[in-house]
């Protein structure tokens, strides 16, 4: 069993009227099973309303399954006595950078999590120093969060999670509200944490470019996992991706069309460099 495992997970959002009668149920997750290996970088794609955020909230025990089970580091998230243990081990970074920073000073915000779990004062300082360094925000430690850019705020939020010494970080569209530079900044930071510190990363995103570096890509649709594989495997199935209303990167699509048209291109091209290389090879091949 990996660090995160969900088995036949079902989750219904239930709306009740004033008399507590069930008015409407909305099935956001529908019989999903998944197993995430420790230390891996998993990207989750899916159009709006496909259930990505709902899944993310199960990993942190913010939501508990309606049916089925979720285990995080072997702990059942439905077990209420384990909830703080689970949240400590699986940190969460949200979309809006402003609405997840609590401290009035950067370093105090990073210390917020350790304070909550009763870490002794000296140890909090050590963790804050380490976490700020890990995300490259040490120079901003005495600043007010209001004076930072979006990308910097998200890095502070990541540092706040790192200070809990988690095994796993779940990021729910952390780049959705950022400019391209901020997006790169955040993805670079996350990738580094995964490579250097061995943190398991679950990155939920809308942007295809961000999933290229992942070990595994999961595509969700209507509360189910519909595609699962390496980025190359997933991106070689362009028609299917389009069916799930996802925008395929332009180079991938171009390569795909060329391939369909008979060019000798490999499937699942992800970057411009890669495209140019195989395109040159393919052209060279036909000329000779």
């Amino acid at each position: 069993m990996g660090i995160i495992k969900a088995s036949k997970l079902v989750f219904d959002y239930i709306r009740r009227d004033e008399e507590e009668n069930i008015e409407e149920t909305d099935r956001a997750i529908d019989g999903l099973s998944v197993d995430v290996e420790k230390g891996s970088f998993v990207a989750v794609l899916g159009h709006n309303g496909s259930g990505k955020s709902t899944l993310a909230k199960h990993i942190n025990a913010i939501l508990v399954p309606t049916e089925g089970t979720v285990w995080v580091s072997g702990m059942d998230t439905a077990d209420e006595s384990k909830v703080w243990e689970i949240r400590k081990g699986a940190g969460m970074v949200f979309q809006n950078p402003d609405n997840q920073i609590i401290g009035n000073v950067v370093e105090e915000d990073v210390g917020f999590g350790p304070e909550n779990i009763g870490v002794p004062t000296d140890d909090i300082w050590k963790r804050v120093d380490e976490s700020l360094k890990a995300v490259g925000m040490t120079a901003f430690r005495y600043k007010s969060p209001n004076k930072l850019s979006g990308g910097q705020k998200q890095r502070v939020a990541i540092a706040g999670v790192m200070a809990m010494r988690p095994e796993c970080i779940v990021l729910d569209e952390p780049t959705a509200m950022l400019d391209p530079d901020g997006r790169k900044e955040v993805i670079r930071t996350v990738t580094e944490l995964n490579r250097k510190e061995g943190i398991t990363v679950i990155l939920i995103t809308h942007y295809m470019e961000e999933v290229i570096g992942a070990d595994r890509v999961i595509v969700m649709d209507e509360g189910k996992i519909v595609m699962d594989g390496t980025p190359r495997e997933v991106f070689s199935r362009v028609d299917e991706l389009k069916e799930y209303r996802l925008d395929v990167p332009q180079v991938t699509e171009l390569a795909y069309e060329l391939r369909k048209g008979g060019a000798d291109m490999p499937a699942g091209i992800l970057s411009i460099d890669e495209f140019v290389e195989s395109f040159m090879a393919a052209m060279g091949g036909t000329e000779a």
Partner: protein
Amino acid sequence: MLREITIGQYYPVDSVLHRMDPRTKLFGTMVYIVSLFLADNVWCYLAAAVFLAAVIRLSHVPLSFMVRGLKAILFLLLISVSFNLFLTEGEELFRIWFLRVTREGVRMAGFMAVRLIFLVVGSSVMTLTTTPNQLTDGLEKSLGFLKKVRVPVHEMAMIMSIALRFIPILVEETDKIMKAQMARGADFESGGLVQKAKSMVPLLVPLFISAFRRATDLAMAMEARCYHGGEGRTRMKPLRYAGRDYAAYLTYAAYMGVMLALRTVF
């Protein structure tokens, strides 16, 4: 530009008062206010003035910042001075039309003015040398005993510190919404009171929606980071008394002693 607004009026320099524990300053302010109400003769006020002048010297904050707070109470000051001046019974000094000014009235009005001015300047010393965060921490710790009678002191302090973080964000957002509505022809300036109040609706509705949204997001983010109230929580920056704080408490005792002595002797 609105981003620059800071809450409170902290004056960031380094001084012994800035480094002092917020609890010491809170207590000191209270002692000073009580002493002002005990003062009943010129000598007492003189002692209060000397004490205040010494504290201002120690704070390294320019005097102009200290007296800034007085503007806000100018009206209150005028009213209380005139009431005391004209309505105190006693030996008549002179008379303007039907208003009698008595010897006692002049004395009372003078004392009242001095008392109010000292009170405002004295509390400014605290807010100028203490960040709002330290103040919140100080209040939480000093009022900690109230937890025994189920006053949610920790929660109130948390609310205060979250408010401090979000007020600038909401102010900026108000500005943004206002501009957006103005671009669509909204008019926040002209018209009478009713008209103005009505024009606030398209501003307040989106602002409230956004504030509630932020509140839900923040609550979730706090829970995800294991926040579960003050129970079992440690502090990154715990409040600890240092030598200067003990010295300050001794000074308060000495000052109070002098005040009481002057009150009985004269």
